[in-house]
């Protein structure tokens, strides 16, 4: 597997922030995850793709420590931040207090304000979550995860509920923040373009197993019209059993 070797070279897999081995999860008699092994290196962005119901979100929840019904071993090193598909801000706390939720250490107000400024909402700290648009709320959710200075950021289809323009803005923001902070990330997504724009490595989950593990070696900043992007995209779509041209369907 040449692709995998390249991935290990570019991202320090010798020093993983997440190691999961033989993850099994069943709901009733339906097996959702059937022995998943996963390692994420320090600073590595991994996109996890798969059809709906393939267990992507289940795997992310297990890594986030939100699912106690799974077997297997999960070890994460350092701090973890989670961003969900919905913003999940507490409606009764102002934006600033949502970001500062459970935050310890020195200068909490300063760090909160800095995180809010980083997502471009420096002036919205006093707002209630209900007063924000969908895109703004998701930015705040991102700031809430970032302010904890995570070593690994777990994102569960974080941009899927946004409209197309906002999704592009958020993807650009994510790329910039990642370049600045160097956190590792597991990005659960069903958007092949998003995976290829942001990730160092793409995984495809099918029937409870990881069936594809490909390094994305395109140079940053990436764009959908870069040479090489189309091939990767076609490969991934084929792997996800999506016809790549209308004639095939």
């Amino acid at each position, binding site marked *: 597997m040449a692709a995998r070797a390249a991935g290990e070279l570019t991202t320090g897999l010798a020093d993983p922030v997440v190691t999961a081995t033989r993850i099994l999860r069943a709901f009733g008699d339906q097996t959702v995850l059937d022995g998943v092994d996963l390692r994420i290196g320090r600073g590595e962005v991994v996109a996890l793709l798969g059809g709906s119901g393939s267990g992507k979100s289940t795997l992310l929840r297990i890594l986030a420590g939100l699912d106690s019904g799974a077997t297997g071993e999960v070890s994460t090193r350092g701090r973890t*931040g989670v961003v969900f598909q*919905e913003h999940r801000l507490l409606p009764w706390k102002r934006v600033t207090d949502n970001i500062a939720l459970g*935050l310890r250490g020195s200068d909490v107000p300063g760090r909160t304000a800095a995180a809010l400024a980083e997502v471009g909402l420096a002036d919205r700290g006093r707002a209630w979550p*209900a*007063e924000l648009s969908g*895109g703004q709320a998701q930015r705040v959710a991102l700031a809430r995860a970032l302010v904890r200075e995570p070593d690994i950021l777990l994102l569960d289809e974080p941009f899927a509920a946004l409209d197309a323009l906002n999704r592009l803005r958020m993807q650009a923001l994510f790329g910039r923040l990642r370049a600045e902070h160097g956190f590792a990330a597991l990005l659960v997504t069903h958007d092949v373009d998003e995976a290829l724009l942001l990730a160092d490595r793409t995984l495809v989950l099918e029937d409870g197993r990881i069936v594809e593990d490909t390094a994305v070696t395109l140079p940053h900043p990436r764009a959908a019209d870069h040479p090489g992007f189309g091939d990767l995209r076609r490969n991934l779509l084929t792997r996800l059993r999506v016809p790549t041209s209308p004639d095939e369907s």
Partner: protein
Amino acid sequence: MTADVRAPALPAERTRSARGDRPRRSPGPRRWRRAVTPVLIVVLWEGAARLGILPPEKLSPPSDVLSVGLRLTLDGTLGLHLLHSLLRAFVGLAVGGVLGLALGALAGLIRLGDDLVDPTVQMARMLPHLGLVPLLLIWVGIGEPLKISLVALGAFFPIYLNTYTGIRGIDERLVEAARTCGLSAAARVRHVVLPGALPSLFLGVRLAFGAGWLSLVVGEQVNAETGIGFLMMEARDFSQTDVVVLGLLIYALLGMLSDFGLRVAERRALAWRQGLQAS
């Protein structure tokens, strides 16, 4: 080739201006219009009494009720009875409210508490608590404990039920998000569960006040020696219709004032909901 599978660009972030643009009628004229009917009723009532259509021993005119109210206020009688009624209401609401809150939280937060407490309370709730008066008379006698336990019983159930459903109705996803922020179980209760249950709790308190006043009316008519209810029963014995109507008026005012106060407190405590309701 790389056909773009994305949908054509949608309008950017939905702005909130849409709801600010909606023309809003000023509340001024409407507020006055809403006062028309009550004022008209009072005027007709007074007029009918003056014209002799309404016999004063059946229903005293508003002017008589006001003057007797003034007289009883000036000689201190009304103040004393009102104080006793308020004390009973306060103690009863406090006892019933604290018990309802504590048991509701116990049943809402802890599974064992749910199993041990909730089925029993749900059964007891079916008892009409005002029907317990004969039994309470045997248990606690005819004194203050009777009035206070009636008010407490009236207040207990709405507060228990709304605390319980408020806690049960919390969006589990918010609790999860708080967990990912590193909040301990106690901190999750404080920052997520309690504020999330607060709207429901406020509803419970408002219902409890209603039930509390009702219980007080009944309780004070059972062998009391003070209180608004006693004032009314005594007036009935002497056919003082104006004092009876005055008592009713005071009960109504107490209910209205407490409800108004609670609504103001609710609007302050739940300021975050205003944006939510408008959007």
